[in-house]
């Protein structure tokens, strides 16, 4: 106990533990979807640890990268395959967990006042995570790594005035080459993870200030939560969380050992070759929906590009698109319908994103893209209807 006192005198650890854990209250009326924030942290930790081990043998050089991954790490290093499978599966599952975390926020209105900063920092984290995944995908230097990077960096060409120069600046060469690999490596292992940690800190800090949302979107004071409406984060919330984490890890390691193939595209086991374009080029599954929006406007590349950028960022503006006084989707019948159409559309776009964009698929992609935007554009209208209803009903 002496040491704790010594530490407390200098760092106020007792107060810190109170503020962060034992006297930080979480509402009682939540379900296990509120566990996904902690699951995101868990997957991030798995990515960092497995990533550090991969770093010890990976060579960011166009001549060495493919063999360092597929020979050295996968075959020669003891349990190298385990770290690679874990890293690849974790990258994929990160987005599954993130999407569920975000969808929960959208359904229960967790972006609404006073939680705008929580939503925005969360969204920035999503964008940063996307950039991390994209840069990391180039590193094994396989055919799909190469051509995905080539295709996506080419998109920047369409930006007015600076486009073509910007593409060369990003790639460090006229095509994706050794220089691109090295700088993507730098971004993937240093710069982006650093930003992720900084924004995670702000995100968690903001949640500590405004508290978690709940199923009914009710606002509770700290006193209310302390006396009946809530539970302390430690140990009560985390007791359940550890169970959820264990179950999640069973699923996760089942994938790592027995179903890892979905996270490793077969085409990527052929070394990058800038003279040979693969027949089908597609991103990893978590970008397919946005990619399909890009292709959905098949009659105009420029329109597709604008739609693509918009589709990736429009959800960040949810707090200002949806100003309805009713917080939780549980109590919003029209919103509920729109939400499920949106989810169905997102899955639909994801599936279409991998299919060849021809014939009927092209038109379905166009319709799917319109529905995607229709959800966001309908929100101000729904808000207005609900505002009237609330004013009239009370």
């Amino acid at each position, binding site marked *: 106990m002496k040491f704790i006192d010594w530490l407390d005198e200098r760092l106020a650890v007792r107060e810190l533990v109170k503020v962060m854990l034992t006297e930080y209250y979480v509402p009682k009326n939540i379900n296990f979807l509120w566990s996904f924030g902690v699951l995101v942290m868990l997957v991030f930790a798995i990515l960092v640890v497995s990533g550090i081990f991969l770093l010890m043998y990976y060579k960011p050089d166009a001549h060495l990268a493919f*063999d360092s991954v597929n020979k050295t790490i996968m075959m020669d290093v003891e349990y190298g*395959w385990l770290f690679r499978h874990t890293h690849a599966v974790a990258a994929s599952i990160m987005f599954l967990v993130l999407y569920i975390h975000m969808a929960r926020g959208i359904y229960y209105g967790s972006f609404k006042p006073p939680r705008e900063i929580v939503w925005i920092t969360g969204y920035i984290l999503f964008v940063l995570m996307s950039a991390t995944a994209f840069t990391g995908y180039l590193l094994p230097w396989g055919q799909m790594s190469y051509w995905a990077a080539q295709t996506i960096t080419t998109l920047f060409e369409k930006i007015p005035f600076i486009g073509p120069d910007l593409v060369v600046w990003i790639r460090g060469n006229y095509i994706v080459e050794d220089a691109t690999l090295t700088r993507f490596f730098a971004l993937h292992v240093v710069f982006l993870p650093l930003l992720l940690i900084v924004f995670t800190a702000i995100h968690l800090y903001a949640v500590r200030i405004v508290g978690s949302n709940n199923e009914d979107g009710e606002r509770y004071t700290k006193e209310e939560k302390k006396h009946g409406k809530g539970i302390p984060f430690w140990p009560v919330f985390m007791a359940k969380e550890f169970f959820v984490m264990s179950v999640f890890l069973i699923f996760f390691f089942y994938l790592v050992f027995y179903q890892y193939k979905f996270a490793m595209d077969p085409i990527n086991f052929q070394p990058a070759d800038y003279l040979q374009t693969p027949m089908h080029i597609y991103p990893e599954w978590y970008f397919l929906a946005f990619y399909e929006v890009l292709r959905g406007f098949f009659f105009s590349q420029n329109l597709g590009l604008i739609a693509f950028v918009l589709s990736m960022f429009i959800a960040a503006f949810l707090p200002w698109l949806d100003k309805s006084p009713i917080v939780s989707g549980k109590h919003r019948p029209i919103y509920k319908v729109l939400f499920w159409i949106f989810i169905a559309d997102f899955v639909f776009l994801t599936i279409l994103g991998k299919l060849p964009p021809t014939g009927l698929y092209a038109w379905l992609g166009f319709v799917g893209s319109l529905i995607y935007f229709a959800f966001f554009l309908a929100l101000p209208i729904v808000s207005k209807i609900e505002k009237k209803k609330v004013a009239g009903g009370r």
Partner: protein
Amino acid sequence: MKELKILAILVVIVLIGYWGIEPYAHSVMHGEIKKPDYAYSDLKVSAPTGGDATKGKELFTANCASCHGLKNDGINPGMDKNTAITSFNVVPPDLSNIAAIVDHKFLAAFIKNPQEATKNPKFAMPPMAQLSDEDVANIIAYLSSVAKKDLTGKEIVVEACGRCHSVKYQKIEAETPKDNLKAYLGKIPPDLSVMGKAKELEYLESFINNPQNGLPGTSMPRLGLTKEATEKTVAYLDQIADPHRDQRNRLGIWVLGYLLVMAGLTFAWKKKIWKNVH
């Protein structure tokens, strides 16, 4: 109960997504894989029977040995390797074990018309139209008599693929130099080290049986491997591409077992803590 309902919804959505981006997308993109035809039924010759190995050896020395060696019987090729490469852009194979891995009907058709049998109009060996059906049967009888039985997958890959393909991670280097291969085939054939992961095994089997099945227009010749040789080749490519499979399957059970215990313990702890809540 409500939480289980939410979980069920999550599972359904994830499964629909998985079905769409994996099995469904693959079936649309790659279509169906053609079944291999080990009878080589497009070739209009009958399988050779009743050949005489002694006569076969004479015929071999007179007709084949100017380019092909036969180490098993101490026959060296009449042409050294460099001359062969300069003339054909590819090394003619040593035929010691060819009868053990290539279907005999295919072999008969091949000797008479290599371009037709391999489906490669630029195939380097000229047709041996001067040989009668009996001559061909005698040669094949000779080749069978010297061929080593029960070749391993690795030996087959070296014999059947190793003149053009490298298997870098197994330290197998293509016998023919890269520049010659490029001149002969139009491009350098891919390394086979992790081909077992780049392609489905079913596809590999169909592709080896007839490269035109998988890549119409490819310059890879049809090799006429027997069913057994093809399956051994594919099994070998699969095994070298994924050498730690056994270790992975074994460790997986321990890890999942550990996590199951952990889930039990954490559930018990949750119960204990939550007893006092409400």
